[in-house]
């Protein structure tokens, strides 16, 4: 996304193609009865991504930003077609979490989030939180005390959580 904003057309094309896949899943899942409409909304959202790319905040996650646009387009569509089965726009709601592509997104976001941590903290967070290794084992392997491992994992995890919530700069 950053390279796209700087004007790298090849990077931009890859980004849009990747987003297209996610949006396909997103809309098809929500408009099962109307695949043609889902495809329209995918295109509408891609056009909005393009037209509104200046509103992307480099501290944000591309997926969070794109899904917010997708949700806006979906609600707009629902409103126009007079149905309101979906959550109102003002409700803070992590739609990505209920998505088939959620696992892939989570991985992408997680990777991005993890790059914000030091190598040591990253190793500990991945071992304890993702692989579920016992603290004692990790402490023995890294030669640190159990308390120190716990603290590092906790801090790293909080930092990661803050980042994934889309508040890269803490505010």
């Amino acid at each position, binding site marked *: 996304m950053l390279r796209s904003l700087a004007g790298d057309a090849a990077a931009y*094309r890859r980004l849009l193609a990747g987003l*297209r896949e996610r949006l396909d899943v997103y809309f098809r899942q929500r408009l099962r009865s109307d695949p043609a409409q889902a*495809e329209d909304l995918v*295109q509408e959202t891609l056009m909005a991504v393009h037209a509104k*790319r200046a509103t992307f905040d480099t501290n*944000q996650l591309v997926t969070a*930003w794109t899904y917010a646009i997708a949700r806006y387009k979906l609600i707009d569509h629902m409103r126009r077609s007079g149905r309101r089965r979906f959550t109102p726009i003002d409700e803070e709601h992590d739609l990505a979490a209920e998505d088939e592509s959620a696992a892939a997104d989570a991985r992408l976001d997680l990777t991005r989030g993890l790059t914000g941590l030091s190598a040591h903290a990253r190793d500990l967070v991945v071992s304890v939180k993702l692989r579920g290794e016992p603290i004692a084992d990790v402490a023995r392997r890294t030669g640190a005390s159990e308390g120190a491992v716990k603290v590092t994992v906790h801090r790293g995890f909080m930092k990661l959580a803050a980042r994934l919530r889309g508040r890269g700069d*803490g505010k």
Partner: protein
Amino acid sequence: MSEDLIARLSQDLRPLPRFMVARRLLVGAILGLLVSAALVAAIVGVRPDIGQAVGKTMFWGKLVYALALAAMALWACERLARPAGDARGRIGWLFAPVLALAAAAGWQFAHAPAAARAPMLMGHSASVCPWLILAFSLPPLGGLVWAVRGLAPTRLRLAGLMVGLAAGGAGAAAYALHCDEMAAPFLVVWYTLGVAAAGVVGWSLGPRVLRW
């Protein structure tokens, strides 16, 4: 067919100016503020003692208060004009100018003789002040609605509220050129009320006027 679209969009990729969001918001707010100031001069008139007033702290205090509210609300708009923009931390800062002025007002109140307190609070224009602020906030409201709907707000009520408060702050700053009330208790009640009224207008219009 979305391959075609992607190809077309990536051919259309031009580098964008930096700080596009902030720039657009500032253009809308400043143009609106200038229109409001011109309307204040034309309709209710700049206060006749403006020459002496510029030497007084309270004249500037009023302007700073109004512009600080506008700036804080704009700062929140800068986030709310973006999809998934999180403005929670920034909205909190709106209370800073209000609390600061409330502290000053409390101090003035406490140090005034009992008989002087009621005039400090009510001045001579309490019944019109909030209404005029609301009226003069309409030009910046128009400017900011233009700015924000050209961006991509996804929480339209909240964005509308912040747009309204920013417009209210700008309207209050313009109105301060006319208003000759000089007591902090008056300001903290009636100016804040006028700005809040503009916020309510923005909140109620948001979902309709900020759609894109």
